[in-house]
């Protein structure tokens, strides 16, 4: 038993393990890069880096896929982390000659933790603003939700938002704030909608209420292209205490909420990008877009916005442009794009609690390498000049 523990210990502190893990991480990163052509950048991150085991599906012909399992990012990263710490605890005696190596590895620990934290906690949203418009929420560019809004009181809305993931499961959903149960009759992660009158031999209508009765839903292949978005659609049946209220079609393609009344209350039903509300609002004062003379190459684009908190303590203007984001309340607003003939700005809104760690890691690792190689270089030059004199 003791022998076994010792050999286990030797294995985990060994440099061979380090080298093997480094080689595995190269394979992982390489395969993940290649597979972006098929999966797109987001799916690749989930599949390869935020997982313990990744499955590389190599298409062979049209139907068959060869599946190659690879150790995922959490496994390789975690083992590297463990190996690094174990080796240092077990073997490392601090000497000035090795101070650089020590610093570099210490920085690497920060880098790995930082990447883990942003993988777990980073949130990514987008905010679209027309000139003159004010908004206090941002929407996810990928995740969606089904919102049921009790709009009876004109002063405020009561919202129940159901993440798309729950719709995908297909089980009935019940929520204390809702006087009805939700049955998912159909769900498609990506679908196109057409008027039934324009489709030859449309399938039987799924919906009995709202716009959906006139709409045919055609499922589409999921898209992984970075500039395309999946447009999910679902057929939702609402069942109250007195039986079914009817079935509605909801989809990202139907931007307008569908309204109905139930037990004297006005409800609105809409599928939209997952929303994230803030206790402050941004207004777009002016969007500018300069091009180089005689070309369509963008020279810069910038958004002049006004930032106002609900409590009124902050009320100021800010200019957001490339390489110059606005940071406020743990969020960072970046100039991401524009549309609508330069009248709408798209801001990327990011919350990343671990964002300082890479900076610390960077300083430690660079400093460590400079020190270490500096020491080696001085030693080499000294030796070399002695050797030359001798020769």
């Amino acid at each position, binding site marked *: 038993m003791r022998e076994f523990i010792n050999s286990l210990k030797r294995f985990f502190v060994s*440099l*061979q393990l*380090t*080298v093997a893990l*480094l*080689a595995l*991480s*190269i394979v992982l*990163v*390489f395969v*993940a*890069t*290649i597979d*972006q*052509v098929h999966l*797109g*950048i987001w799916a*690749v*991150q989930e599949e390869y*880096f935020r997982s313990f085991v990744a499955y590389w599906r190599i298409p062979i012909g049209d139907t068959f896929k060869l599946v190659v399992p690879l150790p995922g990012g959490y496994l390789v990263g975690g083992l590297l982390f463990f190996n690094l710490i174990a080796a240092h605890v077990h073997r490392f005696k601090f000497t000035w000659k090795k101070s650089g190596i020590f610093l570099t590895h210490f920085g690497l620990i920060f880098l790995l933790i*930082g*990447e883990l934290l*942003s993988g777990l906690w*980073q949130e*990514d949203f987008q905010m679209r603003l027309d000139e003159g418009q004010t908004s206090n929420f941002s929407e996810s560019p990928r995740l969606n939700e089904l919102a049921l809004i009790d709009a009876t009181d004109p002063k405020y809305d009561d919202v129940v938002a159901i993440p798309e993931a729950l719709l995908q499961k297909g089980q009935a959903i019940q929520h204390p704030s809702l006087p009805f149960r939700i049955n998912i009759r159909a769900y498609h992660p990506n679908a196109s909608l057409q008027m039934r009158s324009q489709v030859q031999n449309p399938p039987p209508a799924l919906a009995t209420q709202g716009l959906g009765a006139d709409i045919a839903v055609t499922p589409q292949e999921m898209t992984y292209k*970075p500039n395309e978005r999946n447009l999910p659609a679902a057929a939702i049946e609402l069942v109250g205490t007195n039986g079914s209220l009817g079935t509605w079609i909801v989809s990202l393609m139907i931007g307008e909420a569908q309204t109905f009344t139930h037990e004297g209350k006005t409800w609105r039903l809409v599928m939209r990008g997952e929303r994230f509300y803030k206790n402050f609002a941004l207004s777009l004062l002016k969007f500018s877009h300069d*091009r*180089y*003379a*005689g*070309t369509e*190459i*963008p*020279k*810069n*684009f910038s958004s002049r916005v006004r930032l106002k908190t609900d409590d009124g303590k902050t009320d100021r203007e800010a200019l957001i442009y*490339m*390489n*110059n*984001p606005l940071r406020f309340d743990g969020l*960072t607003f*970046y100039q*991401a794009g524009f549309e609508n003939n330069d009248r709408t700005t798209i801001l*990327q809104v*990011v919350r*990343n609690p671990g*964002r300082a760690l*890479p*900076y610390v*890691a*960077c300083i430690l*690792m*660079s400093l460590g*390498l*400079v020190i270490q*190689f500096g020491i*080696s*270089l001085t030693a*080499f030059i000294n030796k*070399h000049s002695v050797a030359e004199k001798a020769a």
Partner: protein
Amino acid sequence: MKRFLPLLVLLVGVAMVVNTLLPHKQKSEFDLEGFGKLPVLVNGRIKPLDTVARTTLLTIQSRQRVSDPAISQPFASSPTEWLATVCFEPAKANSFPTFRIDSPELLSLMGITEDDTRIKYDSSAKRFMAILGFLPSTRARFSFDQFRPKLDELERQARLADEVDSAARNKFQKAVLTLYSNLITYQKLQYSLVLPESPDFLYELMQFQENLVKAVAAAKAREAGQPYDEAVLKAISESRNRFETLAQQGSLLAIPPRDPSKPEAWQKTGQSLVDVFHTGSIAPAALTYAGLSYTWRNNSPAEFNEIVRLYRNELVKRFAPQLTKSDTEDRFNAAEPFYTSIYLFVMAFFCGVFSWLLWPETLRKSGFYLIALAWVLTTIGIVTRMWIGGYAPVTNLYSSALGVCWVAVTLCIVLEMIFKNAIGTVAAGTMGFITLIIAHHLSLSGDTMEMMRAVLDSNFWLSTHVVTITIGYGATFLAGFLAIIYVFRGVFTRSLDKPTADALNRMVYGIVCFATLFSLVGTILGGIWADQSWGRFWGWDPKENGALIIVIWNALILHCRWGGLVKARGLMALAVFGNIVTAWSWFGVNMLGVGLHSYGFMDAAFWWLLLFVISQLLVIGIALVPLEKWRSLKTA
């Protein structure tokens, strides 16, 4: 004699360089140099017409010379003369073979038969050389006139190919679209300075100026209900139509702004003529180009040269700083420092290699002097490009090739100064040659000094992140090439003695350390830039992953060595694999066509990359030959 050989070699090199800098005697009576220096605004940058001529020729026919292999005299003595012919004598230029086609299917589509492509040499000596393969036996470049009957068909094919997703296009479709876009580029050039179909554009402009005054009177008379000159109004409206065509078809912004407060408001000739309806007078620059066209067609060089001189004198008053830059660029174009450097690198390479066989010290020094000269030349070239473009040294794939060249050669010079064994010279010669050849091929896609898109328009990050990454690339490649020298000398020759082997071992180790430092710092700086501009430190974007793999690979080499897992031979094999890793990061990821960094998509280079990877794997295979089979290690 042997003592002076290194100096003599250096002198020959310097003479080569000086020769490129001296102004050459013009072959034409027309002041083509003066014409080539005239500034125009294209793609957001003021540049001399000479640059326009050269980049257009490189784009449409992959070289700057306009000639046919069977005819000894070139059609135009310089790119500028070609441009002048295109603009002022389009019918003649249409007969020059300036469009390159490699696809046999496209050739047959364009109605070009084997008779057209086969080259019939006059002299039997040339025919013999062609059989041996020293001279081309088929043509690759054809003239606009040759395509003329098939232009409609080409347009139809281009429309069909355009509908196909760019990644899914086959070779023929790509060739169709390339030729189509080249023809459009060419046609736009013809409409850039004067109206090509006008028999005498100068006369047309003067007539227009006269008619304009009359037309104003006629229009007023018509409004007042009095009799008016209908013919004049008709002529004026016809002129307007013609100028609008010119404005739509032209590409160069050749007319400088009249308003000094808007230095960037350059106009196309056509647009400035349309604007005459508001301004009332024709821009002097438009008249200048019409005058140049007139004198060119009537073969009056004296008048042509005088117009160029007068126009320049006028420009100097308002655009002195811009002219200094575009004149420098013209000089820089003519000197072609990077092409001269290619010759120097090759010469140095041979000096270095032969120094291992005979006259070690003499040839080693000669090679080293040549490398130093090439280094000075490339440095000046890169600095000049920075000054003209106003950006950090590395902004696109082309300049990254120059950057990798410079970094590798600089490190080699340092190595050579320390070790004095010609290894640095040979490595510098090889890498300088290869990287500059790569740069030449990258320059075929157009002007290499581009304006930077918004997110990249930050000299701070360009000069920190991009430069450090380039240093990392250069150093990793250098380690790989030094390792190749080790393997080749060890396996195939007896020249890898103990001191040389030790020296190479230390060189490779040192350069790998250096490469680790710079690729790591460069990668992290890139992460910080991404955090500043996109809101995430790391996004697993292909280019980021490529850089990361280089860092991990270098780290792996170092850990293998520190842990005693590899000795000299293993280190060399790992370092050679570093070449593959770096080539993948530099070019491979761009070929995937996904991600934020896909700024230099190129698929023609794919086969070259594959070939390079295979060659490196072969070298690794050779390195793995058992040590007792290495010639240097066999006991004699």
